[in-house]
């Protein structure tokens, strides 16, 4: 039983973590909010005064804004589609009885542990290079002209690279969910003569719906902020400038801190909307 004494001890022991996280959240966010209402150009005059919502309006009306929204949507949407679809298929496949299941699982999960800069660089040079890349050799072997992946099909390339990174995550979570499926239910359906596709549609998929929702939410939050994959490959050129990358360029490259901060606030709001849904699911599980 918790006593009065242990309650106050508990509060004391929680304090460092709470204070650190509160500071980590509030201090920089307040500063971003502060800068977002200023014309602030550190290299060209510094603080040039308050401008109200000017930065917020200029951020969304700049010619770079809508293309960056589109790039973000294509990358996040494309990666989600690929990882969830293939993740479900892979999870079902890995759940089947086979030889060497453990090793196959290791092979499939491995890409998740590769650091993003390595992933980006290996794909960029050793696979997608139009002269020496492996894909170029493959294309030539079929008598086709090699594709200049990162310039001609830049968004597709980024989607491929990021999907390779995140497919293991989706697969692993969906596999964990599939393994909790009651096998008796499946057997009963099988004995009643339900064809495989019906068993998938009426038993497996509904059972997985929660896990899929969680994969989608968590991945969306992380995918919205991918950075190294673009930094190393295209540096935001060829239509791959996502919202995150646009804000990064505004803040650090062109040092227009006011404008970038307004963009940052948009990003924070967007992430919070998604986080709200995720936290609701997590919260339900806590009780």
């Amino acid at each position, binding site marked *: 039983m*918790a006593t009065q004494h*242990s*309650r106050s001890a*508990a509060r004391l*022991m*929680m304090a460092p*973590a709470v204070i*650190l*996280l509160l500071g*980590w959240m509030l201090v*920089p*966010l307040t*500063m*971003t909010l502060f*800068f977002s209402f200023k014309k602030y150009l550190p290299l060209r005059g510094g603080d040039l005064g308050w401008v109200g919502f000017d930065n917020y309006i200029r951020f969304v009306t700049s010619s770079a804004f809508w293309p960056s929204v589109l790039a973000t949507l294509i990358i996040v949407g494309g990666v989600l589609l690929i990882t969830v679809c293939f993740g479900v298929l892979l999870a079902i*496949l*890995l759940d089947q*009885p*086979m*030889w060497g299941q453990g*090793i*196959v699982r*290791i*092979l499939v*999960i*491995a890409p998740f*542990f*590769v*650091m*993003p800069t390595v992933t980006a*660089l*290996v794909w960029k*040079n*050793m*696979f997608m290079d139009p002269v020496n890349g*492996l894909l170029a*050799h493959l294309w030539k*072997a079929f008598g086709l002209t090699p594709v200049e992946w990162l310039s001609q099909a830049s968004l597709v390339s980024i989607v491929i690279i990021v999907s390779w990174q995140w497919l293991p*995550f989706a697969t*692993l979570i969906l596999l964990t*969910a599939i393994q*909790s499926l009651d096998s008796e239910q499946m*057997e009963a359906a099988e004995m009643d003569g339900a064809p495989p596709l019906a068993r998938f549609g009426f038993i497996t998929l509904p059972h997985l719906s929660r896990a899929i929702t*969680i994969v989608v939410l*968590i991945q969306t939050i992380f995918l919205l902020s991918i*950075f*190294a994959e673009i*930094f*190393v490959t295209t540096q935001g050129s060829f239509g791959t400038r996502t919202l*995150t990358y646009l804000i990064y360029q505004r*803040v650090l490259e062109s040092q227009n801190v006011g404008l970038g901060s307004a963009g940052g606030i948009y*990003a924070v709001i*967007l*992430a*919070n909307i998604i986080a709200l849904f*995720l*936290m609701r699911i*997590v919260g339900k*599980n*806590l009780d």
Partner: protein
Amino acid sequence: MARAVTTQRKIINTAAAWAVGLLIFFPILWTVLTSFKTEATAIADPPVFLFFDWTFENYKVVTERSDYARFLWNSIFIAGGSTLLGILVAVPAAWSMAFVPSRRTKDILLWMLSTKMLPAVGVLYPIYLLFIKMGLLDSRLGLTLVLMLINLPIIIWMLYTYFREIPGEILEAARMDGATLRSEILFVLIPLAVPGIASTLLLNFILAWNEAFWTLNLTAAKAAPLTAFIASYSSPEGLFYAKLSAASTMAIAPILILGWFSQKQLVRGLTFGAVK
């Protein structure tokens, strides 16, 4: 009851799964193979897979680069330091939430998790500015602190779930016997939770090792870890496939090995317990 499966089905499953598994693993395999080739073999047309003269030359060249040891040490320092610091802050917090829960515990926990969702780019400039003002830019200490803070929610969360599996009665018994709070945590809780703490350490070490936003933006020459070292190969003059592969292999090999041990913790740590 296990379902009876015909041998034929099992052979098909095995073949399909291995084919897919090897396809997904192939980029890593190819990188490792290329790291043992000469630069000329690495870009040979048509590409060679296994039958080439294996050489360790690339590893020698990369590790003899004057600064390689520093990048490696920075990675170890930053990933290890941020994880240990995080555990130090998280153990007391997780203890409170797991064993002395109050009405607000759940809200605090959810709030902590939600700070993990804060987009880094939204606070990039303030952190950058604070780092300049405090002289932390391009320092191992600064990066260690930032990585500790971004992973703290996951550390607390994981420890909390592990602590909850430990019966509170054991801790109470220790308390009845007159153990102080400190010895209760140090000598009763922590030994019981060693497996949980170990997996938490492992997963967070991996996450910190691979972190590639703050490590790229807050470091220059002095404190840059392996993520930045690899990124430096993206400049045209650094374009040597075999050496790039050797550097990459060295940067990912330790984490791949650790990662294989942490598969289960990955699900637990990254879905915040929403998938079991």
